[in-house]
């Protein structure tokens, strides 16, 4: 959102502030008082996911994850850090573009059906703990759902009311490659508030008027030069730890110019077409709409659900499927994400969060697939 970026710049000149860990609960309380539904990281089924958050002790304090291709494991940290992890299987997409929602309801009226809006009664969200790559993912979905061709009312309503509290990464997983995609690890724009964790507190940057209003009157003071310097060191560590790279040079033409590359056959032998990568991806937006009839009054809900280009039925048309094999489907996914997304939305569809690498049951790593094609173009 351009205006949000502009306000961020206006606030960037300000010195960072400071909130002690002991006072952090007051921020969460304030958000609830203001009517926000606070969503933040918490441990869900042996992974760090995003769910409703009321108390700081629901944060995964003292936990981190070990991620690698095809594997994710929670482990305890020695330092008790509150945000000492990166990203898990959830993304904020599940709140702005819910996995399932009713886009319209059809009701009988005489001998025809009238379609109605089904009001979205979800309160405004406050997202606590948005990583830099995730801010970028939200900005990408803004282009998908809020553009000159089309504005999606559900997304728009939720997005415009959402308060984004970003957290700067102070470590990076081996699957992270935000530096290659130009999205992180430092949060630079698109947030209302951004925090950096240090041992006893957080430095805090204000990115918007809305963010400034939220913290009014809370126990927050200017950060000292020392506190700012420590936060800077913490942030630098994330950047140093990033080891994964994706060479994006001319990537659109590289991929679209190699649609018959032998590597697609190779990856098709490994890929299970399980759809995991598309579900964990913070930018994948493909969906299907199906009708569900209510048993009580016979009304019909048009239900939108996440779909995936890895589902065989996805490219169904008039009695046939266009992308019948896994090779065609993996190729569709990768070329869409990294190449044709640029044609459609003037941005890559990849933010470098590495979720698709971690959550692929067979450990397929898109950076390796691209590298293989780059190495020997056909």
């Amino acid at each position, binding site marked *: 959102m351009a205006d949000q970026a502009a306000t961020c710049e206006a606030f960037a000149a300000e010195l960072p502030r400071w909130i002690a860990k002991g006072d952090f609960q007051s921020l969460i309380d304030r958000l609830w008082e203001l009517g926000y539904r606070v969503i933040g990281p918490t441990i869900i089924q042996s992974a760090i996911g995003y769910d409703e958050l009321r108390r700081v002790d629901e944060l995964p304090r003292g936990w981190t994850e070990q991620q690698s291709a095809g594997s994710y494991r929670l482990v305890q940290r020695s330092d008790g850090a509150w945000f000492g992890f990166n990203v898990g299987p959830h993304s904020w997409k599940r709140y702005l573009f819910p996995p399932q929602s009713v886009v319209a309801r*059809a009701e009988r009226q005489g001998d025809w059906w009238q379609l109605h809006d089904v009001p979205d009664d979800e309160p405004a969200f406050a997202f606590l703990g948005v990583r830099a790559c995730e801010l970028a993912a939200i900005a990408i979905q803004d282009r998908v759902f809020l553009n000159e061709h*089309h504005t999606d*009312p559900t997304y728009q309503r939720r997005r415009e009311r959402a308060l984004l509290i970003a957290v700067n990464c102070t470590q990076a997983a081996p699957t992270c490659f935000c530096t290659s995609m130009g999205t992180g690890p430092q949060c630079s724009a698109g947030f209302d508030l951004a925090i950096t964790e240090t041992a006893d507190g957080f430095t805090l940057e204000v990115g918007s008027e809305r963010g400034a209003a939220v913290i009014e009157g809370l126990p927050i003071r200017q950060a000292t030069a020392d506190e700012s310097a420590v936060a800077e060191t913490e942030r630098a560590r994330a950047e140093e730890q990033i080891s994964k790279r994706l060479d994006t040079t001319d990537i659109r033409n590289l991929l679209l110019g190699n649609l018959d590359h032998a590597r697609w056959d190779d990856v098709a032998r490994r890929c299970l077409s399980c759809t995991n990568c598309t579900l964990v991806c913070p930018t994948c937006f493909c969906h299907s709409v199906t009708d569900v009839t209510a048993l009580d009054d016979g009304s019909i809900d048009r239900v939108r659900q996440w*779909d995936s280009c890895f589902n065989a039925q*996805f*490219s169904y048309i*008039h009695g046939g499927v*266009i992308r019948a094999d896994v090779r*065609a489907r993996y190729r569709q996914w990768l070329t869409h994400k990294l190449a*044709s997304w640029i044609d459609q939305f003037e941005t890559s569809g990849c933010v470098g969060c590495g979720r698709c690498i971690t959550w692929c049951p067979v450990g397929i790593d898109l950076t390796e697939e691209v590298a293989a094609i780059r190495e020997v173009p056909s």
Partner: protein
Amino acid sequence: MSSAVTSGVAIAANPWLAQPARIAALTQEVAGVATYHLRFVDPEVNAAYRFRAGQFNMIYLPGVGEVAIGVSTGGVRTGGVAGPTPRTDAAAAEGPTWDHTVRVAGQVTTALSRLGVGGTLGLRGPYGSVWPLDEFVGKDVLLVAGGTGLASLRSAIYELLNNRDRYASVRLLYGARSPDTLLYASEYPAWIDAGMEIQTTVDRAAAGWTGPVGVVPQLQSRLRPWAPERTAMICCGPEVMIRFAVRAALARGLNERQIWVSMERNMQCAVGLCGHCQLGPQMICKTGPVVRLDAIEPYLAVEGL
């Protein structure tokens, strides 16, 4: 301070709200293909509706689903070629109908085929790009169609013929499986009278068929007179047929900026959003269905894209 939560921005209209429409009349075209002459239930909506040749609507059958169907003609026709709609509909005074030629091929179209005159459904649109007929003024316009693909050209045909003097020539090359599957055959005499040249071909002849047997590209290669520099070609049909028709046209000296095709893809949302209809970088529902060849040519040849 609770104002922090509210936003002053107006929320966009819901694009999913199809408008109720009724089947005003029904024309059985060929086996498995019918034209539905639809009219919105709300007279104001019906009067305000506009589309341009090449665009499509989403037809919604509650409880079944939606399908994208090109508007095959419709609207108030003033003068020119007589409207193709056999108006058994006594209530033509109720306003124009919007015609959709549908082949029974999936759940929604099967359910649609069970509805008769008077049946109701939902309609939203129009969506998609148009045949750029204004760019063809003064040119030889070549229409190439296969099977039910002719439906996507029908509104263009009427528009071309209603302004026939603006074009140097208007020619249709049309191929179908067999003589009895030639779409809109009863309208050909009127099209010819209005100044269109028609050549048809079939894969399999039947008793009484005196025309050629073969595929459309064979007609293309024999077409005379031929002035590639002032020809514009528009094409719709099965994807394989489009590929061969395009190849034949390029072989006869047309370039990629003189050829427009209309692609069929699984379209669900019709607003460039659900992702179902992609062909290479194009989302067919948003940049298509009508696209100039240079936008998709590299992807047309790739199996399964």
